[in-house]
C-alpha cells in the first residue's frame, strides 16, 4: 500500500526536478572545495581506525554520510510538515485504503529512494576522482540507506511534535553541529578525551565511521556496532511516528 504514496511523490516531483538535481551538487562542491582546495594544505590524515589516506579520501565518505543525513532530515521534516499541516495531504490519503502506518512507511521509503540516487551519483564522482581503492566501497550504498533510515525515522517522529516553522530551528541546531563535528572534517583523535565521548554519542559519527571504513576497505567487527546504533535509532523513530500519526490524524 505504501508504494502508492511513493509513486505519488515521484509524480509530484516531476515539476521540481531542478530541486532534485541540485541536491546532488552540494556534497560534490564540498568534496572539491575541501578535498582539492584544502587537501594540499592538509596532506595525509590518519583515520580513527589507523589508515593513512589523502585528505580528499578522508572527507569523501563523511560527505556521503552527511548528505544521506541531510537529505533524509529535509524530506522527513520540512516536506512532511508541509504535507501534514498545509497541504493536508495525509487527510486525503487516509480517505483511501491507506492507513497512518502506510504513510510512515511510504514517506520514509521515498526519502530512502531519493537518498540512494544521490549516494550512487556521489560514489561515481568519488570513484572517477580516483578516491576509491577497494570494491568494498560499494557497501557505502547500503550504509547510506541505513543512515537515511535512522535519520528519516527520527526526523519524521520529531515532525509530528512540531507546532510551527519556528520549531525547525531546533532541527538546524541539531544538524549543523553534527555536520561539522562528527569526525566529518577531522578525526576523532583531534578532540580532547571528554569531548570524544560526546562526539561518539551522536548518530552521524556512527554513520561517518561506518561509511569511511567500508570505503577505505577496512572491515572489522566494530562496524556492527555502528550498524546496530543506526538500526535501533531508525526503528524507534519509525515506531513513534506510526503511533503519533495515528493520534494526529485519526483521533
Amino acid at each position: 500500500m505504501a508504494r502508492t504514496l511513493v509513486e505519488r511523490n515521484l509524480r509530484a516531483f516531476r515539476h521540481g526536478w531542478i530541486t532534485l538535481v541540485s541536491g546532488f551538487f552540494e556534497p560534490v562542491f564540498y568534496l572539491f572545495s575541501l578535498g582539492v582546495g584544502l587537501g594540499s594544505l592538509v596532506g595525509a590524515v590518519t583515520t580513527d581506525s589507523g589508515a593513512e589516506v589523502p585528505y580528499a579520501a578522508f572527507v569523501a565518505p563523511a560527505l556521503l554520510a552527511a548528505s544521506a543525513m541531510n537529505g533524509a532530515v529535509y524530506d522527513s521534516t520540512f516536506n512532511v510538515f508541509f504535507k501534514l499541516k498545509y497541504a493536508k495531504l495525509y487527510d486525503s490519503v487516509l480517505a483511501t485504503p491507506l492507513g497512518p502506518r502506510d504513510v510512515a512507511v511510504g514517506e520514509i521509503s521515498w526519502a530512502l529512494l531519493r537518498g540512494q540516487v544521490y549516494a550512487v551519483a556521489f560514489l561515481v564522482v568519488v570513484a572517477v576522482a580516483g578516491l576509491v581503492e577497494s570494491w568494498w566501497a560499494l557497501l557505502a550504498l547500503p550504509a547510506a540507506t541505513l543512515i537515511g533510515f535512522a535519520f528519516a525515522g527520527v526526523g519524521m517522529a520529531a515532525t509530528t511534535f512540531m507546532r510551527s516553522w519556528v520549531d525547525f530551528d531546533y532541527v538546524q541546531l541539531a544538524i549543523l553541529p553534527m555536520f561539522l563535528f562528527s569526525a566529518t572534517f577531522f578525526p576523532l583523535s583531534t578532540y580532547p578525551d571528554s569531548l570524544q565521548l560526546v562526539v561518539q554519542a551522536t548518530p552521524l559519527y556512527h554513520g561517518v565511521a561506518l561509511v569511511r571504513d567500508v570505503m577505505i576497505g577496512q572491515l572489522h567487527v566494530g562496524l556492527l556496532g555502528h550498524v546496530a546504533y543506526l538500526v535501533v535509532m531508525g526503528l524507534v523513530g519509525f515506531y513513534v511516528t506510526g503511533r503519533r500519526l495515528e493520534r494526529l490524524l485519526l483521533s
Partner: protein
Amino acid sequence: MWPRALSYWLLNYRRTWRGSVVSSFLTPLLFLAAMGFGLATLVDRGPNDALGVPYVSFIAPGVLAATAMQTAVGESTFSVMGAIKWQRQYHAMLAGPMGVTDVLVGHLVYVALRVLVTSAVFLLVAGALGVLLSWWVVLALPVAVLTGMAFATPVFAFAATTESDAGFNVLFRFVVMPLFLFSGTFFPISQLPGVLQPVAWFTPLWHGVSASRALSLGTAEVLPVLGHVLVLAVWTAGGFLLARRAFRSRLEV
C-alpha cells in the same frame, strides 16, 4: 521617506528575531570553531606552510565576509518576493506618500543593518578568542556591510523579477554555496585549478574576503584594499540600478 519603510522592517524583525539567532549568529561561529580549531590542527602541521599565519586567523575574516554574503542573500530573496506577491507589504507602503525608491532603499538599509549586526557579533566573538591579529580589523566591519550590499542589490533585482521561488533554490545551490566554498574563504584561490582563478576575481565575495583578510591580518596595503572596495561598490551600484528598474516595472501602476 525611506526611513518609514525601514521602520516597518525593524518592527517586523523585533517580532521574529529569535528565528535568526541560529542561522545568523551561531552558524558562522560553529564554522569558525570546526574549521579554525578542529581542522586547523591538521592544516597547521600540514606539509606546506603556505598561509604563514595560524589557520584560524586565516579563515576568520573569510567566514566574516561569507556570512555577510549569506545573511544579505537570505534577507533579499523570500522577503522581497513576499512583499510583492504574498504579504504585499510594498503595496501597502506605496498606498501612502512613499515612492518606489523609498520602499527599495528602506528595505536595503534594513538588510545592511542585519549584516552589520551579524558581522559585529562575529567580530566581537572572534576578537575575544584572540584570532584577529590587527586593530585594522575594525575597518572589516564596513567592508562586510559593503560585501553584503554587493549581493543584496542584484538579488533584490532578481527577486523582484522572478515569478516563483524555484529560482531561489538554484541561486543558493549554484551561486551562494559555490562562492562560499571557492572564493578564498577556506583556502587561497591559488589552490584552485588555473581556469577557475580568474572567475573568482569577478565575484564580489572574493574581494570581500581579500579585503577583510588583509585588514584582519594587518597586512593591508592601501591600494589593493581600495581596489577591492571599488569592485564591491560597483557591484552594489549596478545592482541598485537593476533593482530600481525591476521595482519600478513591477510596482508602479
